[in-house]
């Protein structure tokens, strides 16, 4: 895709997404394979957040889950002051650990699998992690936390890091001008598909797979940044509205 087209896509994307699309920071600071990558969390944080995550299926992404996590890890209620962003830290912990764990979930036995196919299985594998950890039923709450103004930068940073990781694990090592577009496109596709997943009632998340295929097809044909991001924003808004309604807010 030529640069002017990419630029146009950026300008037409919803305002909240522009920073992501424009992000010119160096390509993925740390890929999961690098041995010298600093540990993502210090021991006490690891202990508290992993225990808190285990509370999410019953208590949601809440301060209560965080407090119970602290207790389980041998800390005090007040120790949750270690996490200035409160329950959003549990969301971020899930995002970070699942991104770093993705490489162990997927193996590509032969070299014949194309990059496109690999990207598809990596996305589905990452989405499966939401189901296996039991957080999927609470994921709309996570999306609502991610869409709070103060959490948007960290959420977008994590989303583009995941996008980088997927391209990397899929074996795409191109460093040409198309890279920023690829990162943004996949980030948008992933985000849209993940939102779709939270509403998917089909067996074995078949519909999510089909939804993903349509988004990937869009990217192939029309350089889908615009299409998918708009859809993502739409789904995001819908998810938030639904959540607020379920909490009794009248909108």
């Amino acid at each position, binding site marked *: 895709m030529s640069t002017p087209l990419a630029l146009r896509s950026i300008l037409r994307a919803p305002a909240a997404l522009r920073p992501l699309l424009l992000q010119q920071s160096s390509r993925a*600071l740390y890929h999961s394979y690098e041995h010298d990558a*600093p540990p*993502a*969390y*210090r021991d*006490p*944080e690891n202990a508290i957040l992993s225990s808190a995550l285990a509370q999410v299926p019953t208590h949601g992404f809440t*301060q*209560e889950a965080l*407090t119970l996590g*602290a207790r389980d*890890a*041998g*800390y*005090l*209620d*007040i*120790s*949750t*002051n*270690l*996490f*200035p*962003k409160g329950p959003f*830290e549990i969301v971020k912990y899930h995002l970070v650990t699942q991104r770093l764990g993705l490489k162990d979930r997927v193996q590509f036995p032969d070299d014949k699998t194309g990059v496109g196919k690999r990207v598809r299985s990596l996305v589905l594998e990452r989405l499966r992690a939401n189901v296996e950890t039991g957080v999927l039923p609470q994921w709309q709450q996570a999306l609502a936390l991610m869409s709070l103004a103060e959490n948007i930068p960290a959420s977008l940073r994590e989303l583009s890091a995941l996008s980088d990781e997927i391209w990397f694990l899929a074996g795409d090592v191109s460093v040409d001008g198309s890279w920023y577009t690829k990162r943004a496109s996949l980030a948008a596709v992933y985000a849209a598909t993940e939102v779709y997943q939270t509403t998917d009632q089909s067996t074995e998340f078949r519909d999510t797979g089909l939804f993903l295929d349509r988004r990937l097809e869009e990217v192939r044909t029309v350089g889908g940044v615009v299409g998918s991001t708009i859809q993502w924003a739409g789904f995001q808004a819908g998810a938030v509205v639904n959540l607020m309604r379920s909490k009794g807010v009248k909108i």
Partner: protein
Amino acid sequence: MASIIPRAWKRLRLSKTSGWVCNDCRRTFATSRVQRQQQPPASGQHESQDPKSTHFGFQTVTEELKAGRVANVFSSVASSYDTMNDLMSLGIHRLWKDHFVRSLNPGSRNSVEGQKILDIAGGTGDIAFRMLDHASNINHDNQTSVLVSDINPEMLGEGRKRFATSPYKAAGRVAFLEANAEDLSAINDSSIDLYTVAFGIRNFTYKQKALEEAYRVLKPGGVFACLEFTPQLRNPVMNAIYKRWSFGAIPLIGQVVAADRDSYQYLVESIERFPSQEEFAGMIRKAGFLLPGHGGEEEGMQGAWEDLTMGIAAIHKGVKPA
């Protein structure tokens, strides 16, 4: 500059009668000028190169003298220190205190013992009251208690008076202790859930020593939290304006409202001499605390503190590892 004073003066006068000022401002207790005999400062390691002298604002004084002079300042401005806080914080220190307490979220749901909170330099019980209100009303915790500690018995006396008629006093949820923050030997190791100090630590002679004491008395997992003015605003232009206000106008106002220019001068200067947010976070870490906010490499020390209102003040926290 001069034109500010009549206006500020008017504002103060007005504020003394209007409803939004808390009771502290109406306090009328005798200004004590009596030179109190101070316990000598705790011995031990400290960061000053010249062991004999420390700063009293910008005046260099001997360390034994400092504790005495600080106590004097607070005796002499005790009745109007809230006015001072109003002037330095542009009238919003009460909002900062509210935010400070809310962000700490004291009190513990479904717990039998509640938390033990130690409010150092607790003066008049301002923070203690908010802590108990939050624990009781937000977390429905009627066990959590606060030990209010201050080096100055008159300040503490004010706190006692203020709590005398409160249900917290009757329920035994508040107690008072006269102590230097640098030597809390009256308090057991690992016995406190939450240690708070609001607008106090800049007056301590040995800040690192006070941090070590905080670490000692806190339980594993316990939290150190400090609300304090900062020496520099983030924005250089705002900083220049604020500095002219604090160094130019405030001591003058102090002269007018309290007839005590020197004490106000000291308070302004003690803020200037306080370490920057980065340095202070470093001192907290040095004392053994974990700094909050995922202090990963890429994020630097971000999250270790929170700047309030353009960085006029900041909240620092540390967690004692379990």
